[in-house]
């Protein structure tokens, strides 16, 4: 049982943003997620910190909001951001008029934008197509959505001893006299039930916000689910964010993610939030579109595909098209639905999460009688030992600089050493007792490199058994769950140079270890498999 001032539901960037916003006002929070941090759209996106350029023509309000929020985040969380800059490029076949209007629209949204010649653009980014006819520079940047989430939680824990509970699913609210008194939750691993008493409840469940609202008896939150798929290249392509200069469509943004690049997205309206995974057809579509901007996409090795669901706000009578729906957000106070201490924040974008958290924080603080102002606009986000391992390229630089060969590298692709795993297990938010490999992957680069978990899964598992973090068959089941999760992302890109990788992983995981035959309940497989070496 937990007592808190504010219960926040949803461990994405919004929920953790609200958690930190409230903690900065001195408010204690409990944050729950039915899976883990960034399990939804916060972990299934480009990591793009929009300059606003993408929305300059069609949605000027969102564009201006992106610009302002981008500037704030660059100032308060520089360690999470690569201010790599961006280009908008139009290629033969794109609408010249749309391209021509771009500059003017950026100016009216206050976005710093400069026209350059196609030749200049190709000099900046030699990977660009020769069929370019227009190009503009904008201050796009990239953001590490995992790190910012971890830092949000970490900071909130430090400020008010706020708590994050992973794999904790909301089952029902106990409502009394127009007030939610408590939330009954279930640990999805153990099945145990916990009750959380809270004075205020914030629904920041992203794509699941509509479900959560309905559990509170509120029907005013209506979302359109837009599934988006992205693919990740084995190595970084280009230095800047490269956007296709046309009305937003599929496969028109290529974003560097440190040492890799992400090409996306697709947009497909879906009805069901369960079993969201990338398909071969989506990957084909992305590659075909990506080639138009960056021809080398045709022979680039892609190592994984993944999908997220954008929770888009649906205004009454709106067109059910994900591309046309607003990227803006709404804060519902639910007072007209008879609840005095419930709020839902929905819609929005990764780039604008801080603003969403601020508005939500204002409402919750006011309701709690707390008069502290929002501080997230100016307070730098503190980093920490356990929350820095998601940055691509950090672990190898750390390891090389530290010169301690005894600190064994467990993940060779991303060069993640044992000390990083230890630091995560000991101190990373939400990586509590008997951490899973999936949880480590959310908090590091483990499994994100070329081998996609083929080797690091086994090495990290062995390390955790050695350290007695695992002492039962549960550890191996975590390994199995992790590689099964990775497989979903690898399968749709299994061609060319990446196909042997998949075969190798299968040989190791199924042929050698028989992970596919592992029983779900304890002790059913040969005990030798889990003895300490």
């Amino acid at each position, binding site marked *: 049982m937990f007592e808190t001032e504010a219960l926040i539901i949803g461990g994405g960037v919004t929920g953790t943003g609200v958690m930190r916003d409230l903690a900065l006002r001195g408010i204690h929070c409990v944050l729950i997620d039915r899976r883990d941090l960034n399990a939804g759209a916060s972990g299934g996106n480009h990591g793009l910190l929009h300059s606003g350029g993408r929305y300059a023509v069609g949605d000027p309000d969102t564009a201006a909001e992106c610009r302002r929020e981008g500037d704030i985040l660059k100032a308060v969380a520089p360690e999470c951001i690569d201010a790599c800059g961006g280009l908008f490029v139009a290629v033969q076949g794109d609408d010249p008029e749309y391209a021509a209007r771009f500059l003017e629209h950026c100016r009216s949204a206050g976005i710093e934008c400069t026209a350059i010649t196609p030749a200049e653009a190709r000099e900046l980014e030699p990977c660009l197509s020769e069929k370019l006819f227009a190009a503009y520079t904008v201050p796009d940047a990239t953001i590490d959505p995992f790190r910012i989430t971890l830092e949000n939680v970490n900071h909130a824990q430090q400020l008010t001893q706020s708590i994050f509970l992973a794999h904790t699913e909301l089952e029902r609210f106990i409502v009394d006299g127009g007030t939610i008194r408590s939330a009954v939750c279930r640990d999805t691993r153990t099945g145990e039930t916990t009750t959380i008493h809270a004075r205020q409840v914030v629904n920041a469940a992203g794509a699941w916000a509509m479900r959560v609202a309905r559990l509170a008896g509120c029907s005013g939150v209506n979302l359109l689910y837009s599934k988006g798929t992205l693919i990740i290249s*084995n*190595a*970084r392509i280009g230095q800047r964010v490269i956007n296709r200069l046309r009305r937003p469509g599929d496969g028109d943004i290529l974003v560097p993610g440190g*040492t890799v690049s992400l090409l996306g997205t697709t947009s497909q309206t879906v009805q069901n939030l369960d079993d969201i995974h990338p398909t071969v057809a989506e990957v084909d579509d992305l590659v075909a579109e990506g080639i138009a901007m960056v021809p080398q996409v045709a022979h680039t*090795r892609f190592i994984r595909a993944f999908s997220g669901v954008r929770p888009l706000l649906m205004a009454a009578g709106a067109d059910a098209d994900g591309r046309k729906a607003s990227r803006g957000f709404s804060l519902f106070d639910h007072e007209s639905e008879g609840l005095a201490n419930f709020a839902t924040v929905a819609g929005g974008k990764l780039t604008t999460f801080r603003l969403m958290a601020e508005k939500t924080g204002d409402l919750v603080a006011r309701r709690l009688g707390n008069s502290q102002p929002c501080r997230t606009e100016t307070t730098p986000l503190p980093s920490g030992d356990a929350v820095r391992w998601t940055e*691509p*390229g950090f672990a*190898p*630089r750390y390891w*090389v600089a530290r*010169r301690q*060969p005894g600190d064994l*590298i467990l993940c*060779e*692709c*991303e*060069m993640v050493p044992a000390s990083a795993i230890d630091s995560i297990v000991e101190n990373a938010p939400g990586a509590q007792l008997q951490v899973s490999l999936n949880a480590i992957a959310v908090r590091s680069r483990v499994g994100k*490199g*070329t*081998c996609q978990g*083929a*080797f690091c899964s086994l090495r990290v598992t062995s390390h955790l058994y050695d350290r007695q973090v695992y002492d039962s068959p549960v550890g191996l089941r975590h390994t199995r769950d992790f590689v099964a999760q990775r497989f979903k992302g690898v399968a749709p890109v299994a061609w060319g*140079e990446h196909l*042997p*990788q998949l075969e*190798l992983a299968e040989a190791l995981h199924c042929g050698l270890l028989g992970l596919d035959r592992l029983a779900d309940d304890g002790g059913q497989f040969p005990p030798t498999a889990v003895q300490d070496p």
Partner: protein
Amino acid sequence: METTSQAATRTIDFKAAARDLLPPGASYDACLSCGLCSAGCPASGLEGMDPRRFIRMAMLDMNEELSTTPWIWTCTQCQRCKYICPMSIDVSVLVGLARSAWPTEKKPRGIVRSCEAQLRFPGTSAMGLQEQDFVDAVEEGVASVRGQNDRFARLEAPIDKQGAYFFVNQNSREPATEPEEMGPLWKIFDYVGADWTYSSTGWAAENFCMFAGDDQAWRKMVEQRVDAVNRLGCKVWLNTECGHSFYTLWKGVERFGLKADFEAGSLVSYYARWIREGRLPVNAEWNTQGIKFTVQDPCQLVRKSLGDTMADDIRFVARTLVGDSNFVDMAPSRSANYCCGGGGGFLQAGMKELRYAYGKRKFDQIATTQADYVLTPCHNCHSQIEDLGQHFHGGYRVVHFWTLICLSLGILGADERKYLGPDLARLGL
């Protein structure tokens, strides 16, 4: 592709270089991260590096670190990584590139000095031997062999003989420090009636310019040697019991697009051929004590050049010479054998402890065979394996093929037994 980050140190874009220099499908992008390369690389763990880590650091854009790691001087460019890699990725190519980007004054002095010495005189000797020194050493040697035995009273070691069938090169070590080691080879040529010649220019059988990462000097070296063979009109450039001199020449001809009017041959292949043809009637009858032998496959000759065909010839000659039951192979062997750690300029680089750490794997391989002798047709292997034996207290000896051939034929002189132990010091005299 390359930028200057500080005076004279170039930072290479390794990812881009791999894409440019390696074949499609076998570039760093194709790496499965499986680590077979690292498991089979004796340089793994030195300087915190291994081949897979080299590839991964390139893919992670750690160009500064790769441009400055001293590991590239512990990698002997033996290509064991490429051989075992399921995608055939060759790490040694970018190691060579990294070597080339080091400022000369920071490169290991010994390697640079050896290359500089080669450039100094037309003989191309890494020990700085001048033309006249070489000619004198050969003439003195010939006089001594002729005096040994009536059988060799008319033995010749021609120099600059126009139109000879074989152009034979010569490692500088013998004329410079152990001239009596040249005799056995001359006797073998005399025995089979080979039409051969040395040359007063381009005669040396070593090439440290490739290991120094100096492409221009490597090219110049190969040009001088190719010119010398072309000029004498020889049909076969016959490479002595040496590994890298073979690889650097034929690879250099290909790399620099040179015109060579001859074919490249390895001495051990000819030993095998002459034995098969009955012209070199060697056998193992002398080995009544059951002395055990193993062979080291020189990487430059076997894996990097002629492959298992060469390894088979080496074994055929060795087995014939020592007897099947006295031959113990190493594991792994042939193209999969490990580098001894003497190549790549390692012996000259002055990094002794690292070289021993590298060579430990070779030492263990040899120790497992329990052989009394290691036969190897390579001077670098020879020196390194001998040094490893002393350092790790091995108790084995290292011997050239020509020594055993002459021993078997009963024509090995008393002063030609430097590398034999007491067990064979007097045999057949």
